[in-house]
C-alpha cells in the first residue's frame, strides 16, 4: 500500500516536472508576449529591452524586408524538366499569385538571432582507475532517432579516466556524423576564412555566404555570429543594402544596425530608393530599441508619426542628416504642389 502511494507520488512529481519543462520551453518559444498580458506588465516590458523575437519587432522587420516575387523566385540551377504550360483565368492567376506569396513568406523566414552559447565543461565522473587504460578517447553518442539534437547526450571518456560532456564543436561534428544534414560538411568550408570572405564580398555574393553559413552552423555558435558580423560590416561599409533586400537576411542586418545605432546608411539607401514608409518603420524600431535616446524622447513627447519621425531623427540622432533633410524637403514640396494642384482643379 505504502509502495503504491509512493509510486503514485513519484509519477505525479515526474509528470509535474515534465509539464514544467514543456511549458518553460513553450514560453521561451513564444517570447515575452505570453507572459505580458496585463497592463501591469507593460511598464516592465517598456523598461526591459525589446528582443528580436517580439511580435512588434518581427512585424516591422518583415515589412522592411519587402517581398519581391521576382527576386525570391528567380531561376535557380537545378535538374532540367520539360516546361509545363497552364491556361488560367484571371481569378485562377490571382489565386496562383496568392499561393506564391504564401510560399515566398515561408522562404523569407528570418533565422534566429541568439547570444553566443555558453561552453560545456561538465564532468560527470572521475575514474582514476581507468587512467592509462587506452591511448584514445572514447565518445559515446545517444543515437535514439526521435529526440531533438539539443537533448542528445554525448559524453567523452578521456584517457585519464574522466567522463565529461562533449564540447559544442564535438557535438556538432558527431551529430553531423550520425544524422547528416543536407549541405552541411564535417569540416567548415574554406569560404569562411577571412581571405576567402574578402574575395567573395568583392564579387557581391553576400547572400550566398549567409545562406552557406545558415546551412553549416547553428544560430548560436561563435562561427555563425562571426561570419554574420563580418558580412553585415562589409554591407554597411560599402552601402550594398540592396543585395540583401527581399531576402531572409535583411531582418538580421536591420536588427544588427539598430542595436549598434548605425542606421544612417540604411535610411539614406531607403530614401534613395523612395521607400519612405520603410524608413519611417525603421526609425520607429530604433525608438523602440533605444527608448532613452534624444530622438526617441522627442518623438514620444510630440507623438510624431510618419515623416515627422524622420525629421526628428535627422535633427537629433543622425550624423549625416543633410541628405535625409533634403529628401524630406523635396517630399514636402511635391506633397504641397500636389495638394495645391488638387485645390485648383477642384
Amino acid at each position, binding site marked *: 500500500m505504502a509502495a503504491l502511494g509512493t509510486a503514485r507520488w513519484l509519477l505525479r512529481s515526474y509528470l509535474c516536472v515534465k509539464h514544467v519543462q514543456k511549458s518553460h520551453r513553450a514560453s521561451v518559444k513564444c517570447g515575452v508576449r505570453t507572459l505580458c498580458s496585463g497592463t501591469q506588465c507593460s511598464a516592465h516590458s517598456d523598461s526591459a529591452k525589446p528582443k528580436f523575437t517580439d511580435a512588434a519587432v518581427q512585424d516591422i522587420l518583415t515589412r522592411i524586408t519587402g517581398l519581391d516575387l521576382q527576386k525570391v523566385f528567380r531561376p535557380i540551377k537545378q535538374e532540367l524538366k520539360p516546361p509545363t504550360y497552364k491556361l488560367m483565368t484571371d481569378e485562377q492567376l490571382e489565386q496562383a499569385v496568392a499561393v506564391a506569396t504564401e510560399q515566398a513568406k515561408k522562404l523569407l523566414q528570418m533565422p534566429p538571432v541568439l547570444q553566443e552559447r555558453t561552453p560545456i565543461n561538465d564532468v560527470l565522473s572521475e575514474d582514476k582507475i581507468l587512467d592509462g587504460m587506452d591511448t584514445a578517447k572514447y565518445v559515446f553518442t545517444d543515437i535514439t532517432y526521435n529526440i531533438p539534437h539539443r537533448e542528445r547526450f554525448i559524453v567523452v571518456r578521456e584517457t585519464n579516466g574522466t567522463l565529461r560532456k562533449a564540447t559544442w564543436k564535438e557535438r556538432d561534428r558527431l551529430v553531423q556524423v550520425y544524422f547528416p544534414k543536407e549541405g552541411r560538411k564535417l569540416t567548415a*568550408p574554406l569560404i569562411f576564412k577571412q581571405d576567402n570572405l574578402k574575395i567573395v564580398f568583392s564579387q557581391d555574393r553576400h547572400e550566398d555566404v549567409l545562406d552557406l553559413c545558415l546551412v553549416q552552423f547553428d544560430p548560436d555558435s561563435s562561427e555563425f555570429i562571426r561570419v554574420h558580423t563580418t558580412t553585415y560590416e562589409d554591407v554597411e561599409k560599402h552601402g550594398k543594402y540592396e543585395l540583401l533586400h527581399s531576402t531572409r537576411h535583411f531582418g538580421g542586418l536591420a536588427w544588427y544596425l539598430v542595436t549598434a545605432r548605425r542606421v544612417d546608411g540604411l535610411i539614406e539607401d531607403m530614401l534613395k530608393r523612395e521607400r519612405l514608409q520603410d524608413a519611417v518603420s525603421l526609425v520607429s524600431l530604433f525608438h523602440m530599441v533605444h527608448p532613452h535616446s534624444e530622438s526617441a524622447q522627442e518623438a514620444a513627447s510630440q507623438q510624431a508619426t510618419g515623416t515627422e519621425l524622420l525629421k526628428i531623427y535627422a535633427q537629433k540622432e543622425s550624423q549625416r542628416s543633410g541628405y535625409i533633410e533634403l529628401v524630406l524637403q523635396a517630399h514636402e514640396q511635391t506633397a504641397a504642389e500636389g495638394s495645391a494642384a488638387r485645390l485648383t482643379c477642384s
Partner: protein
Amino acid sequence: MAAPVRHIAKVLFRLSPSVFHPLRQNESFLCRLPGRPCLASSPFIIPHHLYCKAASSQTKDSAQALEALSRYKEKPWDYLESEEYIERYGTSPVWAGYRRNHKGGIPPQKTRKTCIRGDKICGNPCPICRDPNVIVHHQNVKLLQQFISPQTGMVYDPTRTGVCMKQQKLITKAVNTAQDQGLLPFQIPHVEFSEDFSNTHDAVGKTPPPPSLRSGDSWYKWYSDITPDETEVAKVKKLYRAYLKK
C-alpha cells in the same frame, strides 16, 4: 615500281622499328606546339635531313615543350587571356569541335582512362591533354566554367566533352575545391529553423557537479586511504589463525 618500294619498306619495318618511333614522336611534338604545321608524312618516306639530326631536333622540341609547360604552370589562368588561346579557341570552350575516335555509331560509355602514360601521348588526345598550357587548377575558374552546364550547374559528362577519365576526375576535384573556397557559385539548399535553442536540457545545459567533486573528496571511497576497523581485522585474524604467516 610500287611493289619493290613496299617490299623494301616492309623489310626496313621488320629490321628496325625503332627508326620510325622517334620520327613519329617528333611529328606528334611538332603537332602539339601551336603555330607549327602538322607534318603528317608517311613512315615509308624517310627524309634524309631528318635521319642524322633526329636526336638533336628531338631534344630541342622537348626543351621547348618543357618551356611551354613551365610558362603557365605558376598561373594557369593567364593562358586563357593570352593571344595564342584566343587564336586557337576563340570564344568557344576548349572541348568544342573535338571528336572521339571509336568503332561504330555509338561511342563507349566511358572515355579512355588516360591520354598520357609516362612520356607517351596517345593518338587524338583529349581536349585538355592535347594542349599542355591548359592546366586544370581550382583557381582557373574560367576553364572550370567551360565544363559546367550553365542551366543545371553540374559538371558535363565526359562523353560530351571528350576528356579522358583521369582529367575528368581532376576537373571534378577542382570544381569541388573551387566551390568550397567560394570561387565558383552553386545552389545552396534552403534551411528551416524549428529547433529549440534555449539549451535548458541537461544534455547541453549546466548540471551541478557531484558532491564528492565539490567537496574535494576522491570519486570512490576506496581511491583514498582506508583505515581498517580494528575489531573486524581481529575477527578475521582469529578466523584464519591457522593459516597466517608468522
